[in-house]
């Protein structure tokens, strides 16, 4: 058997080294940028969480794990964690249901389909501040059209307190969140729907499958991968949603809609306790990490199962 090293042409080692150096040079800017915008802030947040720091001056002293001990020992963290989970699950469910439904509708050969596909993106592009202002007026008990319509229709006798009572406030922000973010689901699902081979539907029809069966036996399995990604991304984004909730309810009534990002903001800029805010933020990240690991484990298990099959 010929020696591999001996078989290599002269100068090959130098060429490989040059290629390796070139590769490192090309990837270095990416690593630098990722380091600056992801790794540095992450390490910085972890570092800050071990200090008691006054925000305006960024001066403080080392407190070790005291911030974590305090936050885990306080009911506020756990209550906000539960609230965050309820908000995330609720609004995400609505986004998926509405998004998939709308994508299926826009996949049909309907009148003004192109226009509708363009318009459906509107809420996603609208600034959150503007969207919240509009929705707050819609929900307003004195001048809001929602209460007026319901009262005119005889459904309610008096205005409903949409944002100032529970569970209305939570349901209201879930609806607004779903309205704002369902277009993302539509875009992703619609793109996937357009690549499902028509032959699968023809085969299902030949086998006597009706529309419902075709949806559950053909469409949904084909959407599984894209929905997994959409759910993962939207879970992360909804879990850390701040502006929409802050502007809609400010976390109230009492602490009914006070999610973890609102606490981070209040700790950092209301109470000027940047170290504690960082501890909350790191805790949020750890919670998300649990979701991420669960997802990766599930994805690996599925991959292995598919390989075995």
């Amino acid at each position, binding site marked *: 058997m010929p020696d591999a090293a001996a078989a290599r042409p002269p100068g090959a080692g130098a060429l490989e080294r040059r290629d390796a150096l070139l590769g490192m040079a090309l990837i270095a800017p990416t690593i630098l940028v990722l380091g600056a915008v992801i790794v540095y802030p992450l390490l910085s947040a972890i570092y800050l969480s071990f200090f008691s720091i*006054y*925000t*305006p*001056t*960024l001066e403080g002293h080392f407190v070790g794990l005291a911030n974590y001990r305090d936050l885990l020992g306080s009911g506020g963290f756990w209550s906000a964690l539960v609230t965050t989970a309820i908000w995330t699950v609720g609004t995400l469910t609505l986004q998926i249901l509405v998004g998939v439904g709308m994508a299926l509708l826009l996949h049909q050969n309907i009148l003004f389909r192109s226009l509708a596909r363009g318009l459906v993106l509107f809420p996603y592009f609208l600034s959150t501040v503007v969207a919240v202002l509009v929705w707050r007026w819609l*929900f*307003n*008990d*004195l*001048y809001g059209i929602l209460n007026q319509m319901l009262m005119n229709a005889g459904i309610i006798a*008096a*205005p*409903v*307190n*949409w*944002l*100032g*009572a529970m569970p209305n406030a939570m349901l209201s922000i879930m609806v607004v969140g779903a309205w704002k973010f369902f277009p993302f689901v539509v875009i992703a699902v619609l793109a996937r729907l357009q690549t499902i081979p028509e032959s699968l539907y023809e085969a299902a029809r030949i086998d006597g499958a009706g529309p419902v069966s075709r949806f559950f036996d053909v469409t949904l399995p084909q959407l599984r991968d894209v929905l997994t990604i959409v759910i993962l991304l939207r879970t992360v984004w909804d879990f850390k949603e701040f502006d929409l909730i802050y502007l809609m*309810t*400010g*976390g*109230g*009534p*009492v*602490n009914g809609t006070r999610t973890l990002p609102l606490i981070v*903001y*209040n700790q*950092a*800029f*209301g*109470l*000027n*306790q940047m170290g504690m805010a960082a501890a909350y933020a790191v805790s949020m990240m750890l919670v998300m990490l649990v979701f991420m690991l669960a997802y990766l484990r599930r994805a690996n298990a599925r991959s292995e199962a598919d390989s075995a099959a």
Partner: protein
Amino acid sequence: MNQPERNPLRRPVTRRDTLRVLAGSGAAAAAALTAGCGSKDERTTLRWWSPQASPDQLKAYKAQIAAFEAANPTIRVVFEATSDEGYPAQFATAFAARQLPNLVTHLPSFAAQQYYAEGLLEPVDDVIKAIGIDRYFAGANEVYRTSDKHYCATGIGNTAADMLWYRKDLLAAAGITAPPATWDELRSAARKMQRDGIYGAALPYGMNAMTSLIFIGFIHRAGGQVFSPDLQVAIDSQPTYDALAFFQSMREFCPTGASNFSWGESLTAFVSGSTATGIYSGRVLANVAAQNPAIADAIGCTTYPTMSRDIPAWTYNDFPCLLIPKGAPHLAETKAFAASLYQPQLYAQQMHAAPGHVLPVLRAVADDGFYRANPLITRYAAEVDLMTKAATAGHNLGQETAAHKPNLKANEIIASNAIAELVQRVVLNKENPKAAVAATAVRLAELMRA
């Protein structure tokens, strides 16, 4: 085979051509930018922040800036609006990033005291001296006195932020001859006036600063206090329970959405005619004139009723002030500009931009014919005089009474929403007041220790 002759004007565009065009465009843009740099404004720039920035106020500020710039051609002043609810975050980040404005106005006195105590502000003794301390109302700057015998800020105005606004026509229709002076009278009036889609009151029950700031006034109107004069937590007392009971009893006379009310919603509820009474500053005057002139002749105001006649009125004045962040450049120019804002005629114009809302701190201006000639101030002279008097004697959590020491944690206590949460727990959640107040007392003690 003959090749067809190429028309040089019709040859395809090559990559090289594209690069040439891009390079040429880039060079032209760079040249334009360089030329622009040549005409760069060389003047010293001062940044002025304020959360009070209605269109009329902006116009008044521009006049003040123009006058100062005309007298100081080497300086330009840039105004930047901040927000009432969001200024703590804006300031925290500005200080942390050392991107400081030169001058800030219309922040509450307790914010100035806190920032000064943390070493973030310049004393403004020079500015007060330049303006002339004798020109202020007596004691107008005492609320800005610091423990090191300086002034952390100076008043830019006064505000009587929790006046009782009422509709004379609705009071008369309900058979009530005088505005309410006690809580029982107010509750009774609200009950009688609440009909035909009009609510009796516009009290705030939201999870925000307004609810905290307003409710503190009710504790005082029941004869209580949040902290003792030496700043021990004193909220767990009978007057607080009485104030909560009153707030709870008034909920049925407030709009359904009052549990999410902040300043804007509360103001609009009264101005639009949706409520028979309101709780706000003199901003009501300009807003009624502009948005609902039909009720302009029917509105009046008085200090907010107390639990009983033997308890004196307590008016919430946030003492809107002028302060100078430490570390911002051009300190001398900033102090000169700060003093220029009190030039009598321009200062009066600034007051005219929000007549009755921001009240003068300069005695001479308050009595001056030019200031009083404003149509709204003339029309509502009695109300404006009452608000001026009430605001001058007003207080806030930064110094609850004249006997209190300055509370350097007041800013953070308001930002924590601890008191708004107390109101919501008792009024909206119907929790046991004693337990809720006890929990709030613990929370306040923690905030004071932090």
